[in-house]
């Protein structure tokens, strides 16, 4: 959905048939790729903070712990909300939810996209027609509008279900891209050979075709991961997120609702947005880095 337009199906470098056996080579270029390292340098600290942070901040992020609306200090690193909640504690818990939604939503979308993309691309014919039609329908249906309706009526208020619905709506562009790649690999010699020796369809897909586009699959997952985070933040911001707990989108919602802007409580709304931007931006930059690692043509030596 929120695919970086540079890597949409039509624009992606064709199949980038990765160098199979030479695992070390990819690693060699990976540790020398500035973009990949820069992305990781942003992402990993945030991940560590999300995992270990609650140990630092203690239990309930919504607890009223200090004087309301106090600016950042050595005591409260990100200051407090209008109600005296610790913004840093909320930020740390929000990061957790963000990563969870990204992994679950992006993961589910990647799985659906792969199943549909591989099946359509490999099988061809009528199966392809039907799956293609399905993909195109979900593709033009504005996902956020669907999520709004479903969310509002069913009153879903848990992170898992939110991720489930995001996953169910954001797979189409991935399916289309994977289908196109599968299509180009399907008639290669090694696939023909496998087919002639009577290997079953799923084995051909998983042993012959998928490994040859593994780098592409990783990058697809990264983009879906980032997209899920952005969609979840929008939903939370509208007030259709989890009702208990905190998320970065919900923090923005609260800050806007209780006029943090007019009161000048910038420390309330700057961190959550910066957190989302940093995670998603780091993912996009890493994606470009990975592209350079896997695709020899793009390497700057």
């Amino acid at each position, binding site marked *: 959905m929120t695919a970086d*337009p540079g890597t949409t199906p039509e624009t992606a470098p064709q199949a980038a048939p990765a160098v199979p056996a030479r695992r070390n080579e990819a690693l060699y270029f990976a540790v020398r790729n500035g973009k990949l390292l820069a992305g990781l340098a942003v992402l990993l600290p945030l991940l560590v903070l999300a995992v270990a942070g609650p140990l630092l901040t203690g239990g309930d992020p919504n607890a009223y712990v200090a004087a309301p609306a106090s600016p950042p200090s050595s005591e409260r690193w990100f200051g407090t909300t209008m109600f005296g909640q610790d913004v840093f504690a909320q930020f740390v818990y929000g990061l957790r939810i963000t990563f969870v939604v990204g992994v679950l939503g992006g993961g589910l979308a990647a799985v659906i996209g792969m199943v549909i993309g591989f099946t359509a691309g490999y099988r061809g014919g009528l199966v392809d027609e039907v799956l293609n039609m399905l993909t195109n329908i979900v593709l033009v249906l504005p996902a956020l509008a669907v999520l709004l309706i479903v969310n509002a009526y069913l009153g879903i208020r848990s992170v898992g279900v939110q991720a489930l619905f995001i996953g169910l709506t954001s797979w189409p562009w991935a399916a289309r891209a994977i289908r196109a790649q599968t299509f180009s690999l399907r008639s290669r010699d090694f696939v023909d050979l496998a087919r002639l020796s009577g290997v079953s369809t799923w084995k051909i897909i998983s042993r012959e075709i998928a490994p040859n586009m593994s780098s592409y699959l990783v990058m697809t997952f990264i983009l879906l991961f980032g997209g899920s985070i952005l969609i979840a*933040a929008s939903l939370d911001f509208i007030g259709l997120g989890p009702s208990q707990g905190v998320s970065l989108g919900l923090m923005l919602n609260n800050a806007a609702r209780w006029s943090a802007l007019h009161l000048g409580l*910038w420390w309330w709304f700057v961190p959550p947005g910066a957190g989302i931007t940093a995670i998603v931006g780091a993912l996009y930059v890493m994606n470009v880095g990975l592209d350079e690692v896997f695709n020899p043509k793009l390497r700057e030596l």
Partner: protein
Amino acid sequence: MRRYFGRKLLVYGLTFLVAVTINWMIPRFMPGDPVQSMLARANVSQPAAVEAMRAHYTGLFGLDLPLWQQYGNFWAALFRGDLGISVWLFPTPVTDVIMRAVPYTLALLVPAILLSWWAGNRFGAFAARRSWLDNTALPIGYVLTATPYMWLAILLAWGLGVVAGVFPVSGGYSFAMRPNWSWEFAGDLALHWFLPFASLFLVAFGGWAIGMRNMIIYELEADYSTYLASLGAPARLIRRYAFRNAVLPQITGLALQLGVLVAGALVTEIVFSYPGLGHLILQAIQNQDFFLLQGAFLFIVVGVLAANFVIDVVYVLVDPRTRTGMGGEAA
């Protein structure tokens, strides 16, 4: 070409069918009684009004009829433009409420989409061939695309609205004014329009610039470019060919990004309390006004489908392959 449009129309038709069916199914198959919950939320005190609403809702849902008949009636009402009556703004029909909001949303979206696309492509192509610019523009572009729309909107509202005090931060026009045809009102509208527009424009601009930059580099390394260069063609000519080729995927990208842009406009409007569809949806959710929500949903779906169709037509005009039928598969 006929095959291409035939396929496209089939997809759009089916999508519309799916959307309407989702819209129809959800209130009927969800737990609880939608009529009762809407009446409770409506907060109308006169018994006559409550009865009128109940009768109207029950009639609209047609809950006593067999399901297939309910489904048929839903479509029939839809084609009459009857989307029910808003609970929040009782007794205004949903269609009227939406029609009042649509001009604001369109005034934000259309310029933001077109200008960001145009400027982003220009800038991306320009940045691709100057390494110092590329090195500074690229990171900024990535940060911009990764920014959630509402956050940039909040930052702009805070920075330029509250702190600097240059722009108003909420509403479509000043409270002191009534809509009328005067320069003064038009100026006021433009002032309120600027910040929401700017936040939409900036996020989208980053995405297009990066996409174009990558495509141009890819095209300039392609065989035809090196061939032209070895023939001694001027760099300008090569770049022009590269640009024409790189623009095609960007048009497809525009179709893919429409839904995201619309979503961005919705949350941006919420930040600025801009009186468009996004603001309406927020009100509908907060007031449990399901008819309004459903109406807005359908409107967005139709809008996105129509915009997609326009992009398809443009694609045919720009890409000769679609005209000969080859591109029917790819696009």
